């Protein structure tokens, strides 16, 4: 079994199985058209794209790792750093912008004590801004993992965060 050390989402370095990646590569085939789908599936599996994963993809697809990095850094979806357990995506589309999206990001940043784009110290939340999630009639909107929260305000943000924190304590 081929393993490599990458930090887990808890921040500890642990041995992680690269066999998962090899299986993903096998399923998609090694053509250059498979690069983006492989990166997407790898990120799903590992939470982000560690160096070891990028190098293995580079060797398997015979694409220079510089080119793989080129693709990874071009697309907003890919991450080179681990993220929190819950990803908060505050929509900054046009409708949300005019409905005060900036204040929603600020409220999350204030409640979580992180800057936009960063992860909380306890690695529970990552705060991101996204272009548009397409739920314009519910503006301002934020998505946490797969769930959408519409018509938010400062108070709504606090409520949502409290709900997640309560759930975490229960788990």
């Amino acid at each position, binding site marked *: 079994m081929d393993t490599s050390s990458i930090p887990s989402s808890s921040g500890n370095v642990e041995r992680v199985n690269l066999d998962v990646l090899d299986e993903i590569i096998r399923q998609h085939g090694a*053509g*250059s*058209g*498979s*690069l*983006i*789908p492989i*990166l*997407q599936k790898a990120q799903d599996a590992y939470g982000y794209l560690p160096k070891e994963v990028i190098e293995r993809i580079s060797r398997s697809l015979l694409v220079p790792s510089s080119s793989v990095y*080129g*693709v990874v850094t*071009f*697309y*907003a*979806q*890919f991450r080179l750093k681990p993220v929190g357990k819950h990803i908060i995506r505050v929509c*900054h*589309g*046009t*409708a949300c*912008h*005019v*409905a*005060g999206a900036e*204040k929603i990001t*600020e*409220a999350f940043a*204030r409640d979580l004590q992180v800057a936009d784009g960063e992860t909380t110290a306890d690695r529970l939340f990552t705060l991101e801004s*996204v*272009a*548009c*999630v*397409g*739920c*314009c*009639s*519910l*503006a301002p*909107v934020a998505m946490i993992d*797969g769930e*959408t*929260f*519409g018509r938010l*305000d*400062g*108070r709504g943000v606090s409520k949502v965060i409290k709900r997640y924190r309560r759930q975490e304590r229960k788990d």
Partner: protein
Amino acid sequence: MATAEKTKILVGLGACGIAAGAQRTMDSLKQRIDELRMDNVELGVSGCMGMCYREPLVEVTLPGKHSVVYSGLTEERVDRLLDEVVSKGQIIEDWVAKADDMAGSEDAFFEKQHRIVLRNCGKINPENIDDYLEVGGYTALKKALEQMNPEQVRDEVTKSGLRGRGGAGFPTGIKWGFCAGAPGDVKYMICNADEGDPGAFMDRSVLESDPHAVLEGMAIAGYAIGAKQGFIYCRAEYPIAIRRLGIAIEQAMERGFLGDGIFGTDFSFKIKIKEGAGAFVCGEETALMASIEGRRGMPRLRPPFPAIEGLWKKPTNINNVETLANISWIINKGGDAFAALGTEKSKGTKVFALAGKINRGGLVEVPMGVTIREVVEHIGGGIKDGKRFKAVQMGGPSGGCIPEELADTSIDYDSLNRTGAIMGSGGMVVLDESTCMVDTARFFLNFTQEESCGKCTFCRVGTKRMLQILERITEGKGREGDIELLEELAATVKKASLCGLGQTAPNPVLTTIRYFRDEYEAHIKERKCPAKSCRALITYKINPDICDGCHVCHRVCPVDAVQGDKKEVHSINPDLCTRCGLCKERCKPGAIFIE
């Protein structure tokens, strides 16, 4: 009218509905129907009905009766619905959004609409191919394959006058002709579902609500151009659309509407889904193809055009979701029927995602030629909270702001172009008096600047410089001559950029300068934001006549800027205040105002 013995309940499970709690409604319905052993009830899923402002929506059809759509149907309302409507056969009039045989409260929303693209949206279960077949699905593909040759199909589409709905408005039939005429055995048909304009969700709703209509359109297009392989390039941000497309492709393959030898002819067509990875520029044809090939999505010089040298250097045709959703209707009803709708040069209908400061936001489809005002005031029900209608933003980052004075402009490609905005893909965001136009321009420039792929210097650096100028104007640091500098930069960026992103990026700035120059000047010369929106130029104040000293503002202020003891009139220290607005949001008597 339903003839079935069973009561049919459909829950609208589009992304908007789910965001408003429709999944919880669905789960609750399922549970209660089980518990109450209501065996004569058939519970199903439908897509987007368009009335986003009334979500969650549930359609109930009692045996032998017309269907009624109930709105605001959150899980708390499930029991009453099951008791009064399903068991007792009554109608809860207060909740009715739309009914086929009676005046619903939302007639105004639908009255001026004409639904071709959205014909099945919210009416059929997008995850069940039989629902699509019941409303005539795949009959257009059958007709094309059995009764028409590829040239006749192209001619019919050309005759319809259909123009590309992604924004550029190129005639679809003629585009197909280029690819059909290109030499080569292997050709590709791509559906562009990389809907990236902020404030636009037309394609998402169609894909989520009627995926088979898009597949059928693609198969017909494939036949017309001579392609055997299709790709759908869809944003990864649309997980429900991707999942439903996957189900639809699988079902169409099983029934033989896709695959080898369709309808016993020698035509074969298969479709693969490619997920985008979050790059706005990939909506541009050549960038989209580079992305499918696994490279950075950067546009390239045309010619060669994709019709000659496209995906993997093979002739390729790319159409937008909405364009393709029109195709089966055109083949079935004929190009003339489509051309009968609309204006001289803009035929058919257009779908708009109506959002912003409007009473009834949602998905609307209108015949070309209606005016902006009809959409905003009649269909959309006017501006929220009784505020003043200021402008509509059309065409997203490539479009512009059309002021209220020009709201009688007809919605067609040419009239909209004359205003400096564009038809665009269909985002229509309504702005009211509290929206700052300089900030709106800054917002779009921030977007295009971030999304510029960096290939062309004028787009990469020019948009950055324009953004910096707009930022300083909104921060109250604008300089004399900034407006002229913006205009000069805008002209250069438009001229020296390779693709549509750079060529159109200055439009939001140019249109706001053209129609709202006084707002720019107020920011620069008087250091004032007339819309009272730019933070650096406003102050939060407390009206002592209204303040009752409840102390809530003091408690919620994160920076301790609110001063005053309980039961006394409070005041805000402008030096400490960060203008976060929390106090105003929480002030019950409404004593806090912006100056």
